[in-house]
């Protein structure tokens, strides 16, 4: 049973526009969420995280929103740049981050110049 779902496998946006990547989870015990970005032939790199005590966290062009009642989080990238083209993984953990991370399947973002 997939606990972290990234239902859209890909997204294509124009440079300068907003990219919105979505993630849903089923385990109500999850309380810490992360986004990772992965370029081809490289390992994933940490992008941004959010704790369940917050509903928003910003870091430059990246903002993560958490809707606990809907068990949904989203990553907004504004403005999108061609260098943002990558696969993005959503991940979640429980017990304040003391449990193993559970990853979604990933979503490929393409930002067109």
């Amino acid at each position, binding site marked *: 049973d997939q606990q972290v779902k990234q239902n859209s496998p890909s997204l294509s946006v124009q440079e300068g526009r907003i990219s919105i990547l979505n993630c849903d989870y089923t385990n109500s015990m999850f309380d*810490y969420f992360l986004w990772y970005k992965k370029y081809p*032939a490289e*390992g994933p790199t*940490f992008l941004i995280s959010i704790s369940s005590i917050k509903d928003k966290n910003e870091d430059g062009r990246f903002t993560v929103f958490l809707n606990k009642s809907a068990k949904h989080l989203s990553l907004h990238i504004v403005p999108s740049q061609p260098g943002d083209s990558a696969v993005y*993984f959503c991940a979640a953990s429980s017990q*304040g981050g003391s449990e193993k991370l559970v990853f979604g399947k990933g979503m490929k973002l393409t930002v067109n110049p």
Partner: protein
Amino acid sequence: DAGITQSPRHKVTETGTPVTLRCHQTENHRYMYWYRQDPGHGLRLIHYSYGVKDTDKGEVSDGYSVSRSKTEDFLLTLESATSSQTSVYFCAISRGLMGDTQYFGPGTRLTVL
């Protein structure tokens, strides 16, 4: 960038042969992980370690074993490789709690013929 190296970076082997992948860190982080990445599955945890000689299974541990004799090294062994183990393998480390931000190595692409 976190100091994580993986060796080899690429390997082609035949079914039934043993294979060992190495992960080396220079960060003195307590936790180390082995993941595999496959199309349609995202990142799946194979085994992890929470200290020297302390290891445990992840969600896809069958056919794999691990060892950690030093803080900096975490070895993943396929005792008898099968074609289903053709994948990209990533090592990761984290400083503290298991759900803490994980830093990934560059990956090893393994092909089992």
